[in-house]
């Protein structure tokens, strides 16, 4: 376990990139829960964990002849700032193709301190 930071250092919807054993890892706080992803996009290795964090946009099949409504889902994603590849922060899976994913890491919180399990 590697100590990353105090809980209050990363607020909801924010991330922090740290270097562990030569590897960059992004730590995310989503509604008080912490997640960790490798900071390397599967596309062209962009610094994905430094990208914008948002709720995923969804839509459903509309009534005949209508446009689909677009809405924010409850899933949070991070968007690679190089080209826009978008990943679910909890699973590391690409929002458009779950067959593509970036490695995730276990995160532990104890005594208001965030630890990374690598």
């Amino acid at each position, binding site marked *: 376990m590697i100590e990353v930071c105090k809980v209050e250092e990363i607020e909801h919807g924010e991330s922090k990139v740290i270097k562990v054993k030569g590897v960059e890892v992004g730590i995310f706080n989503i509604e008080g829960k912490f997640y960790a992803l490798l900071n390397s996009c599967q596309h*062209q*290795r962009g610094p994905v964990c430094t990208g914008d964090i948002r709720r995923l946009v969804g839509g459903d099949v509309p009534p005949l002849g209508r446009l689909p409504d677009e809405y924010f889902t409850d899933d949070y994603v991070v968007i690679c700032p190089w080209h826009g590849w978008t990943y679910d922060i909890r699973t590391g899976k690409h929002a458009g193709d779950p067959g593509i994913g970036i490695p995730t890491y276990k995160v532990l919180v104890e005594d208001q301190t965030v630890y990374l399990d690598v």
Partner: protein
Amino acid sequence: MAIGGKTIFDTDAHYVETLYDIVDYIDDDDPWKLKFEYGTKERSVPISFWPSLSRPDGFNYPSIKRRDIDFNTKEGVVQLMEEMSFDKILLLSEQILTFAMLEEDKRQTKFAEAYIQYMLDKIADADEGMYMSIPVPYNDPVKAAELIDEYADEKAVIGACVLTARIQPPMGHRKYDPIYDACQRADLPVLFHGGSATLDNFKWVSGFTTIMETHALGFLFDNMTTIANVVSQGVPEKFPKLNFVFQETGLFWIPMMMYRMDMEYLRMQDEAVLLRKRPSEYMKEFYYGTQPMEIVPDKKYLQYVIEMIGGPERLMYASDYPHEDFDDPSVITELTFLTEEEKVGILAKNAEDVFGV
């Protein structure tokens, strides 16, 4: 700089100039200066004068940001080259992307004249590996040829770029012969660059509702139209010493066009009386920018495509920086089916030979 000892020549990066940058290069006694000046107050351009394009940083979509580079200064170009390990860079005008929206008037020619002077004065620098292309004002081919004649000898000018978005008639038409003639005399390669990228400047078909559609198809429509017309009208036979480079269309469209054009030619060759061989043979003599490299599930598909279009010696690495779909040099360096020599060619040498730098 270089990567792994290999020189990197980016043959398609967009210098994000604004009208504000170039207005000083229009003569004070030229009535058009007033129009450009009015059009650039506070860097805000009225759409009645010039079509809206991109943000000054060149990023057109939310969440895209890469480096804190102001790609609107020479320092920004230097910074980009250092960070991306580019040894040489060929800069394309950003505002040329509006050319398809400029109807038959002097805006293209006035812009091109001022842009060339601005770039030569402030940005382009052959000694530093910073090259530029002439934005060809194809609405006025005679004036375009004069500009090529005037500036082709500049050391930093290494190409003439035609933005192929919705050019009508397409670039095989005889009206453009003065442009090709000037390029051939100056030994200046012609760059055909697609550009019908977004909902509002995709003019081939109306009715699309997502940029996913227009961005996927626009560059293709532009350069498929161009290659079909240029080949069938015999432009390579009329100007046999001219080199043609097709940019920003990826690679997979090329074999499709080669074999479709061959099919048509073999049954209707009497329509294309200037051709001395199959269309695909001409296409295998053209050069192609690699960006945007298609994303394929198995790299062998890409390998086949490259083989079909004449091999790695037809390719030139291009980044398209700073746009949203830019390609890092790793799209070439990590292709395991290429030999080291072939990578050297794609990353720089093919372009160095064609552009003479």
